[in-house]
């Protein structure tokens, strides 16, 4: 069975790869491209640990095929920080101790970034429902929500300048 040639953009970089027809985007990221920041927690779209942004929308990369990335733009956790400058969501996750084991963290950060890109001023309830597709078993979500709400405030202040 021959592989498919895919031309896409990942974290702003033009990227080409070969993948099997049945290979998920998550497997392509992790096994073909070495981008292991996206995690596999369930492979069924239930846990959100593999969340990436595809053309502005969050998707579970385990539910997307590698071939579907053709011509699109994908942002993974590795592309959230700008060089050595952490994204405000990343910085606030650290300051609020919003991670314990850290395994769900990449998915939460990608999902939260997408939320704040679309809605700079979410209510706590909106943020909770937006993040309801990301499972965390360690934190009880309290500090994650505080980090996201705090990051939103920082980003609004930055945008106002």
């Amino acid at each position: 069975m021959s592989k498919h040639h895919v031309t896409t953009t990942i974290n702003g970089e033009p990227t080409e790869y070969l993948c099997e027809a049945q290979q998920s985007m998550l497997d392509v990221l992790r096994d073909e491209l070495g981008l292991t920041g996206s995690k596999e927690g369930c492979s069924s779209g239930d846990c959100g640990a593999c969340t990436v942004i595809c053309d502005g929308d969050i998707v579970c990369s385990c539910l997307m095929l590698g071939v579907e990335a053709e011509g699109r733009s994908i942002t993974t956790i590795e592309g959230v920080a700008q060089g050595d400058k952490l994204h405000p969501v990343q910085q606030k996750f650290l300051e609020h101790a919003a991670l314990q084991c850290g395994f769900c963290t990449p998915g939460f950060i990608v999902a939260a970034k997408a939320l704040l890109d679309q809605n700079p001023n979410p209510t706590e309830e909106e943020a909770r429902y937006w993040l309801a597709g990301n499972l965390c078993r360690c934190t009880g979500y309290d500090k994650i929500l505080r980090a996201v709400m705090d990051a939103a405030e920082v980003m609004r202040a930055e945008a106002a300048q």
Partner: protein
Amino acid sequence: MSYLDKAALKIVGTRPIRPDGVDKVIGRASFGADYTMPGMLWAKVKRSPHAHARILKIDTSKAEKVPGVRAIVTAVDFPDIPSEEAFIGEGPMNFRDLSRNCMARDKVLYDGHAVAAVAATSNAAAEEAVDLIEVEYEVLPHVIEVEAAMAPDAPVLHDDMFTQGVEPKPTKPSNVAKKITFTKGDTAKGFAEAEVVIERKYSTKPVHQAYIEPHACVVAVAPDGQTTIWSSSQGQFMVRAYCAKLLGVDMANVRATPAEIGGGFGGKTLVYLEPVAMALSKKTGRPVKLVMSREEVFRGTGPAAGGTIEVKIGAKKSGRIVAAELVLKFQAGAFAGSPVGPGCMCAFAPYDLDNVFITGYDVVSNRPKVAAYRAPGAPNSSFGVESCLDELARELGIDPLALREMNAARDGTKTPYGPTLTNVGYMQTLEAAKNHPNLQIPLGPNQGRGVASGFWFNIGGESSASVHVNEDGTVAVVEGNPDIGGSRASMAMMAAEVLGIPYEKVRPVVGDTASIGFTFLTGGSRVTFATGMAVTQAAEKVVEQLKSRAAAIWDISAEAVEWKDGKAFPAGANAGSFEPLSLADIAMKSGRTGGPITAEVSINAQGAGPGFATHVCDVEVDRETGYVKILRYTAVQDVGRAIHPSYVEGQIQGGVTQGVGWALNEEYIYDKNGCLENAGFLDYRIPVASDMPMIDAVMVEVPNPRHPFGARGVGEVPIVPPMAAVANAIADAVGARMRDLPMSPPKLRAELDEQDPPRMAAE
């Protein structure tokens, strides 16, 4: 030395950013499945589709022909290990059982039990080959529920299981592995004095630890037998010991490196994959990667025990309890070893009772072997006892906090299981709960408030740590416990506090089994206590060396040097007049004053202070659907001394949320053939962000004098009270007493329908 004076602390008690944090927010941290090696093979496990069956034949011939397949292993590739109590895990375990849990021999004992494994050049080839392995089974009758498994006519899992703790010794095998009892005083006499007796039966379901990271490992066995294991576990030394034993090799030939661990909660205190990958690597001569799917995690690992809890409490009308009895029947899963012992011991531990009788049964059935889960055993028995206390409080018309205060354990209380409690902060948690502003918030219709308390022993044990001074005066700390929730930060903080240098100058790492002395696994809420003690002592030894090096530079005696704020000073005028020497000054000259400055300490830490918690939960019940919304949650806990308060709060908030899941949603659903029907996160529903409110974690600090900074374990007791707190809140809200977990919408709705039968539309 002791650092109990909180006002004198500069670093301990602050909230710095964890040293491993950046790697984890940028996706660089390497977890179990993130590791690869050159020439690595991919492996998959073949699992039983039957709950109980004899393995008649395993035919691998078709699977071997799949292109890319390099090896297949079954039980014959592992030594047949005799029965022997294991010494290394968190819960009770037997090496023979562990070996057979990793790879079934003769019989499969649960749906999902491993029967074979394949290593191939790709994941796809391994998966294809697994499907082509043909296993011929003789299906046997199975049993899932604990009381059914105890019935005289139940299918017996193990022909050689004769109930221990029963006189005379049974002549017939059964599924009851063990009966245990604990007695204090005379309950017959106590109940005779009682003015009110409440006797109730409760039940809990087995629930999965549900860490988000599935089990994963990479194992490489070299031709000379030297083995490298990279895996996600709660203890690299546990992995080393189990793998060496199960494969029959010397520990010296096994080096286990802990990956970052994506959650464990007790569920990663055993091995499932590492011995299998090791056998495959040995057979192929190539590194082997083995990762579970989520379905495999549910079918093949954990869960926590479930079981029944029968509680009988006798009291005076004043509320003073005069007698208490408890019978626990716990699920062990396919092999003996449920946490019924700690379940028995923790149940009444928060109370000072004269007459107690407790019986526990450890029962096997055709489910996965249970693993530890956060305060193993205690949440089950406490759900029964704390619910029953609430029923007693309602019967007597006494405030539930006042009832607990009246009966609370204090310093000097003798527990029903023997030891006398010291250093008890339970009353302080009740006091703080009573005074919390959340308790003044008025409740609306269908809203209720529930109170429950909990106890967990906390443990100490064997820990090693080393502290190395770098040439520029910065410091490396090496410790032996996988960091499951921010413990690197705590270790660095304690070392920095002792050395008197900034937190950022200390970088902690978790060593592999060849890099640091033996350290018992991350569990039992022991790391900050025991390993923190080892780090503190190692840092103190380094301070002693720094003082003697300064003395050598100044040519005075070491006793004439004092260490303060990260610098050596002459201790008074008689010592002489010298400019202070900083850690960096001394480090730079260490080559000329005796060589590198390092210290390693190995201890068996004793005196872990007990953990007590009191939780108050407010709920609102939707009468139409039976849905329970958590409105607010106040979790008070004696934490000894919070080294890094944010991570202590995090432990409390996480434990509460897991408890809420256990209370309201989580359960295993089996079909009539004993196969698990909800082996995924869609149907096994753990709490999500929209299910929870913010959780008010209230830290009470009653310092533990046996720890240099006063720390006591904090990770486990927060999961003990929530189930009863939620049940008691539901009873308060709508008068429905839910005695069987989970209190899911259909069950609560059925209770409400009984209160107020639904009328037909025609009526």
